[in-house]
Each structure stands twice: as structure tokens, then as C-alpha cells.
């Protein structure tokens, strides 16, 4: 089979429902973790939503290394995770699976909703770091 045809078949990804019990992964640049810096400012929309990866289709390592496609160094990024139920519990925030076909990222998920001070403070309470900057993986 021609590889382009194979791609078209493989990349016919449809949005799916994301269960509350799953996680969202998100990259965090090392500059956010300078001494005594908090990451309340990290939680913002780029375009319509805040980009994350759904744990069903991605590992933290894959999320970290996705920056290679954009010419950036994975070593400069940590990865955090957030429980979907806790994200949805923040006012006005919805979790929408939005596969990124051009960048071949089936895990891509947008967190939609205004990221005002209330939302940002609450996001800052619900994340855990799953890959630190100094970790080789």
C-alpha cells in the first residue's frame, strides 16, 4: 500500500469522549521552574484552548518529546499531569478531544474556557509533575 494512502487511513481520527478518571499531560518549559517561581501563568489558552495530551493516547515522555517536531529541545521541558475530573470541576472549563492530524498527535486535547485568575489559581492546585527537568526521560 502506498504510504500516503496508509497515512490517510491511519489518521482518520475522530474526537472521542474522555473519561473523568484519565489524565491530561502538559509540557512546562524549564524557565517556569526557576527558584521560587509558581506556574499560575502557565495556564492560558493558545487560540481556542489550552493544549494538552490525553493519557489514553500519549505517555508523559511522548508529550515531552513532541517539541522535537517544532525544532525545540525536549530537555528544556518538564511534564505535568492533571486529572480530567479535577479539570472539569474548575468553573467554565471543558475537556475536548481534538486530534491534531497535521502534527500526527492523536492525543491532542483542548481545555476550553476562559483562563481568568480564578481558573488559573485552581489549575495551580491540581497538577503533579511527572517528568522533572533533570530526569533523562
Amino acid at each position, binding site marked *: 500500500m502506498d504510504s500516503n494512502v496508509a497515512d490517510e487511513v491511519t489518521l482518520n481520527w475522530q474526537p472521542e469522549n474522555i473519561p473523568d478518571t484519565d489524565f491530561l499531560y502538559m509540557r512546562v518549559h524549564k524557565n517556569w521552574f526557576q527558584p521560587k*517561581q*509558581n506556574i*499560575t501563568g502557565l495556564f492560558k489558552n*493558545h487560540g481556542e484552548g489550552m493544549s494538552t495530551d490525553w493519557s489514553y493516547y500519549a505517555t508523559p515522555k511522548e508529550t515531552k518529546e513532541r517539541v522535537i517536531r517544532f525544532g525545540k529541545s525536549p530537555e528544556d521541558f518538564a511534564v505535568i499531569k492533571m486529572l480530567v475530573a479535577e479539570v472539569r470541576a474548575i468553573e467554565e472549563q471543558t475537556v475536548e478531544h481534538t486530534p491534531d492530524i497535521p502534527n500526527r498527535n492523536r492525543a491532542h486535547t483542548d481545555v476550553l474556557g476562559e483562563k*481568568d*485568575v*480564578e481558573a488559573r489559581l485552581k489549575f495551580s492546585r491540581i497538577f503533579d509533575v511527572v517528568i522533572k527537568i533533570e530526569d533523562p526521560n
Partner: protein
Amino acid sequence: MAIEIFKRKNESWHKDEGRATWLEDEKPKKIKGFEFYTYVEFCKTESSYRQNDASVELTSELKESIESSKQLLKLGDDWDGEGSLGYSESTLNRAIKFLTDNAVQFWKDNAVWVSAPEICPGPDGSIDLLWKLADRELLINIPIDENEPASYYGDDSKNNNITKGKLNLSEKHQWILMWLMK
């Protein structure tokens, strides 16, 4: 430049003590058992963020928070690999002025210093003031546009005792520090 210092009521204190020179016949301001007099001599301190006559010495914790916030100015555009704007001196100075003005006023009103916030990167070139205390948390965002009000949200982290709204940065808002320190 005049600054204010305090001394305990009825405590003896010569007017020529130290580097101070007192205004003659000045009526002290009495606040919670303390009397406030006014220096007429320029008083040098380490803090370069003293505002107008509100020149009491900040706590070391507040000064350290302000000092470390200057690191933000080293973050140029795209400092996070996601295209974020860098931080301007103008925005940082407004954040520091807001903090020091209100912290000093809060101290004058209550004889208590507010805990130091973390002064950290906000979205789109704005700056966040974040307090995470045992009982209450408060986030104030100082926008990049000086004509825009600051936004704030605070609660007890259990969605109780919520305070939320906008602050005109040209006014004092020590009430919000009162809310925080309750």
C-alpha cells in the same frame, strides 16, 4: 524626602536621637497605641522601592520577594518556548508599587505586616502576585496595560470565603490584605 517612623507611646526619645531630626511642634499620629512622627531628614535604606511618605522599612521577607522578582526582567520574548511575551520594568514596577503601597498601609492600620507574596510570571506579559497561606490563597494579576484594572481571586482552597473582582491600581486596597490575613 520625609519618612515616618514609630515609637511606643510615652517612651522617652530625644528629638536629636540617631539621624532623625523632628519637626517642631508636630502632633503625632496615634495608631493602635503607637505614635508616628515624621523625619525631615533624608533617610537611606536598602529598599529602592519606597513610595512617597510611606517609607517604613519593609520586612526582609517582602524585600526578598521584591528582589527576586527582578529575575522576571531577564525573561525575553518566547522565554517559555511557547511564544510568551517577556516582562517589562513598567509592569513589574506597578506590581511592586501595588504591593508596597498596600502592605505599608496595612501595617499602619493594623501594626501587622502582610506575608510576602510570590511575584511570578503571568500570562501575556502580565505579572501575578500569589499568596498561598495556610487558610487562604489569593492571586492578583497586574496587567501589561497600565490603563487596565488588576484582576483578583481568593478563597480558602475549599471554595469558601470567595473574593473576586477588579482593582483600580491607582487606589489603595489594603482591605484585600485584611481579607487575606484574617
